[in-house]
């Protein structure tokens, strides 16, 4: 049984009078296994949030099916095993984090003792204790995001659906969220999240899916999707005689001066190795030799360029 599964999922929002309806999502087949960290990628308007809203029961699909832990998302029980963090989460401003967690525990059907127990574990995990008594009104973006995460964890759901959890956070905040997701995987949870920060996705995701204009372009393991071929090699050398410099520059894609010496970008490993041989033969120093492989960002951009 998949943690999340959609078959032919489509959502068409009603257009304004006289205007055609706009398909936001079309024939989406998606499978997310248990205990995976799954990245859901796409440009703005690709249909990521629409998919997430369908999965969370906030909107109804026009066609197709969607299930969380094998239960149709149109059924209330599907939300029993689901925790949701919306993009830029909003909470009641007049409540404190402790009251907020208590409120969501109540509407999740948890008893008083269980709510107290969950507050203990969640507040510790997300460092909420020091701000437990402060009203949400004065919270920074990072604090709100932490509280949003805490709310998603209330009820100990098996599947977490996070919409742009790193959006607007500073590097420290993003790192914290990444670590949290990895920690949740060790706890046996499934984390499904959308993001624009492809570096973060590449670092932590087991699998990804890429959407474009409401349609699934590709899904699979990150290491399988990326060819991992070397796209180019960066070579830096110092003390190069002018003639050798010119010879290497003639085979390079580009060359420039840097603080450490001459910086060459070679198109492949063969030419890079040849350049290194010339550097050594001339008695110059090799400062750096870096083969650069395709990143998820390169792959994503390549896909976007390919699509009409």
């Amino acid at each position, binding site marked *: 049984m998949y943690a999340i599964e959609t078959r032919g999922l489509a959502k068409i929002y009603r257009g304004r009078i006289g205007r055609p309806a706009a398909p936001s999502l079309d024939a989406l087949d998606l499978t997310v296994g248990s205990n995976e960290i799954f990245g859901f990628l796409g440009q703005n308007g690709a249909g990521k949030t629409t998919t997430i809203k369908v999965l969370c029961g906030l909107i109804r699909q026009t066609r197709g099916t969607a299930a969380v832990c094998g239960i149709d998302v149109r059924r209330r029980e599907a939300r029993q095993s689901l925790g949701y963090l919306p993009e830029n989460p909003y909470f009641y401003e*007049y409540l404190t984090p402790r009251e907020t967690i208590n409120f969501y525990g109540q*509407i999740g059907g948890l008893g008083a003792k269980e709510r107290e127990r969950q507050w203990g574990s969640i507040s510790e995990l997300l460092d909420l204790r020091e701000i437990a008594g402060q009203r949400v009104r004065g919270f920074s973006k990072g604090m709100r995001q932490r509280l949003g995460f805490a709310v998603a964890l209330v009820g100990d759901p098996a599947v977490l659906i996070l919409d742009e959890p790193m959006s607007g956070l500073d590097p420290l905040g993003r790192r914290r969220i990444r670590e949290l997701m990895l920690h949740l995987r060790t706890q046996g949870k499934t984390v499904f999240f959308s993001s624009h920060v492809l570096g973060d996705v590449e670092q932590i995701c087991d699998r990804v899916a890429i959407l474009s204009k409401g349609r699934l372009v590709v899904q699979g393991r990150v290491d399988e999707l990326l060819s991992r071929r070397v796209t180019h090699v960066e070579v830096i050398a110092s003390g190069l005689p002018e003639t050798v410099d010119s010879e290497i520059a003639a085979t390079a894609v580009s060359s420039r001066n840097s603080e450490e010496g001459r910086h060459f970008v070679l198109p492949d490993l063969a030419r890079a190795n040849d350049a290194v041989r010339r550097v050594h033969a001339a008695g110059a120093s090799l400062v750096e030799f870096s083969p650069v492989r395709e990143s998820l960002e390169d792959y994503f951009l390549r896909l976007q360029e390919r699509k009409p």
Partner: protein
Amino acid sequence: MRIAAVAMNTFREAVRDKVLYVLLFFAGATILGSKALGWVSVGQDEKIIIDISLAATSLFGVLIAVFVGTSLVYKEIDKRTIYTILSRPMWRYEFVLGKYLGLAMLIGVVTLVMAAMAAAYIAVMGGHVGLTYLQAVLLIYCQLLLVTALSVLLSSLTSPILGAMIVFSCYVLGHATGIMINMPPRFDGTFVKSAFETAYYVIPNLSHFNIRAEAANGATVPGTYVLWTMAYGAAYTALLLVLAAFSFENKDV
């Protein structure tokens, strides 16, 4: 428990709304100011104070029901607080009912405070309030519950401004049902007559809830009348809440 949690949260939110205190201040000022009209109506002080106090309780209660009620669900969608709530394992009708009950609780407290304030003022002025006064307050509250239900229904369908306009129109027409069914003969066969006749059968007759004159004059109102009027209000309120829950069930948020 889920309904109670939403209700308590709604109550708490509304209690912290400054608008509530502004309305309560004006309600108090109106009740205290009723003495001024008493002076110009020789020997009628007590009647005038009771009448105006009950009218103020009703009017300010309606203002709260309309202004808070019509934005109740809409605000949750607009501020996106609803996302994290409806993604929980709760029925949507539980949310609507919880919001309604929270506001009903608030209006109950406000009605009680205004009625108690007026009763204390009347006592200070040397008068007294009897059973009919309490019956009048009870029926005002029943009417406010009905108006609140209509506000909550519209809150899940349309914007607060349009919703408030519709509720106010229904409130005014609800107090003028006699006019709607007794249109002058020159309107016979016209669209206006059929529209008003339809409205007569659809819009609740709110004048049933008005026994201010009886309370002011110390007249007796039969208990059965109060019970039947309450049942009439409860039936309309239940119907409106069912419609609100139904309209919200498949709404995209």
